[in-house]
């Protein structure tokens, strides 16, 4: 029986994903140092070809594309991670309560979850932001609002199987309260599927965030990859790199997170790894 670490890191896809994500994290933390200019500052002639001064050229207003890309890393990752954390927190709460209390509460909460799964989620996110007005916080709220249901379902399923186990019954007999049993006994045992679902959710959140920014619904005055593509789309004929480069950044990041998520899944559920 191999250990978790060797199963996880022995997977070349996971390795590549971790390298890309690690470099992104580095860029996100040091963006101010790597590209000391404000990404919105006009620094050169509009739509200059890539050159030594601007390795990825400038956009239609003369902003440095490389600086935008580096600063965009931070915004894109931060919004996606925050939205995922919010979705995981809310989804875990709903799923845990539904699974633990069962009966009517379970029924009501699951209908509630199904409702959110039925409505067209991206359109709902758009409507939410249109009504709440675009801002970084509202983008996080909108993404979290449409992405918590899978978490709730996963957690509920796990809680249902764990709650009938003997150590939980022992805790009940020992007189622990519901909150303590849920938090200390049951939830720690639901972690592995939660980690897998949550990590894949970050990838979805990045896709949703960039689509929102592309449509002009992202946080204003925050440079993000989707915003760069949206700003460059009218100039594809003259400057193809304006849309191509940020798109590749999104693609590689989502790919890396998906590969890490699947690697986690294979490592945490070795029985299913052959499928």
């Amino acid at each position, binding site marked *: 029986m191999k250990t978790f670490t060797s199963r996880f890191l022995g997977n070349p896809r996971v390795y590549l994903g971790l390298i890309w994500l690690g470099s992104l994290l580095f860029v996100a933390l040091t963006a101010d140092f790597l590209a000391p200019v404000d990404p919105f500052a006009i620094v050169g002639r509009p739509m200059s070809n890539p050159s030594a001064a601007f390795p990825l050229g400038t956009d239609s207003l003369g902003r440095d594309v490389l600086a935008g890309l580096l600063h965009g890393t931070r915004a894109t990752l931060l919004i996606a991670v925050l939205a995922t954390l919010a979705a995981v927190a809310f989804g875990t709460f709903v799923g845990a309560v539904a699974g633990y209390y069962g009966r009517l509460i379970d029924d009501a909460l699951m209908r509630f979850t199904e409702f959110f799964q039925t409505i067209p*989620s991206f*359109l709902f996110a758009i*409507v939410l932001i249109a009504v709440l007005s675009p801002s970084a916080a509202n983008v996080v709220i909108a993404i979290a609002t449409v992405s918590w249901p899978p978490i709730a379902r996963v957690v509920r399923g796990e809680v249902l199987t764990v709650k009938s186990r003997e150590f939980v019954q022992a805790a009940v007999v020992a007189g622990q309260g519901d909150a303590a049993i849920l938090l200390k006994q049951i939830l720690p045992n639901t972690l592995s599927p939660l980690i897998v679902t949550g990590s894949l959710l970050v990838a979805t959140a990045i896709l949703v965030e960039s689509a929102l920014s592309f*449509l002009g619904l992202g946080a204003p005055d925050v440079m993000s990859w989707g915003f760069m593509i949206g700003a460059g789309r009218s100039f594809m004929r003259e400057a193809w790199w304006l*849309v*191509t480069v940020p798109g590749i950044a999104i*693609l590689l990041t*989502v790919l890396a997170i998906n590969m890490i998520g699947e690697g986690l899944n294979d490592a945490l559920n070795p029985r299913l790894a052959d499928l």
Partner: protein
Amino acid sequence: MKSGSLGGYVVRRLIQTVPVVLGVVIVNFLLLQLAPGDLATVLAGEAGGAPKEYIDQLRARFGHDQPVYIQLFNYLRNLIVLDLGYSFRQSAPVFDLLMQRLWPTLLLMVCTLVLSLGFGILMGLLAALWVRTWKDNAISVAAIIVYATPLFWVGLMLILVFSIRLDWFPTSGMEDVVAFHEGWARVADIAHHLVLPTLTLSLFYLALYARLMRASMLEQRGLDYVVTARAKGQSERRITTRHVFRNALLPVVTMAGVQTGGLIGGSVVVESIFAWPGLGQLAYQSLFARDYNLLLGIFFLSAVLVVVVNLIVDVVYVFLDPRIRIG
């Protein structure tokens, strides 16, 4: 299966959809309440300002001076007769606008569904038959990459290559309006405009269905009934086509139903890129015109569309899988 029981099943499923539709209506109503500025202030603002008495008068006329629960009741009553309000930006009732724009979106969605399901199932099937060969790897890697690609970027890249560089397909619109095509020429023209939007919307789902189909085929192939069929002396080809393939289809059909909502979200992006005159583009326009009546009308119609598709999928499912006994 008796036809009577199927009818009963459909009716039961229809009744189950009522809470969802009602939920959407209530969410819609709450969002309208949340939206900054009500209709009266918007109209007054458009007229270049108005005295407070006039605004109050307008509010009274729209029933906005009533308590919230009465407003909700009025909103519900209007919806039942398909009155979704009036779009003051487009100077037309919201319902009429929606009906005009529904068909282009349905055309796009149906073409996408056929293309993504057809090719997705085929690719997944081939990958499963060629499992652990370079062909399987090629299909799987391509699917993983497409699965991670943002939809809007696919659209822009297709425009860049096939419209701007190669000039094979038009960049936008649903037909060449100045050409005044009629009959088959018009159909061909629309089909020509349809290629890139459909391809853009399809690729992600194609990858999704291919991955699902492959996993589903491999799972089914290891089940006991396959061993039984083999023991009976059936040929591998027959086992694959008659047994494994049919069972492997079920999760893909389920997923196709689940993805309808996603398809509508994707069509907002695709239609705004290709200026496809459907609901998605209308949503995009109403968004920036702050036309909340129209935007929420589109949201309501989309939700109803999802509910209807899920209903259809459930009925199809009963035909595909006789193990699902109704009731």
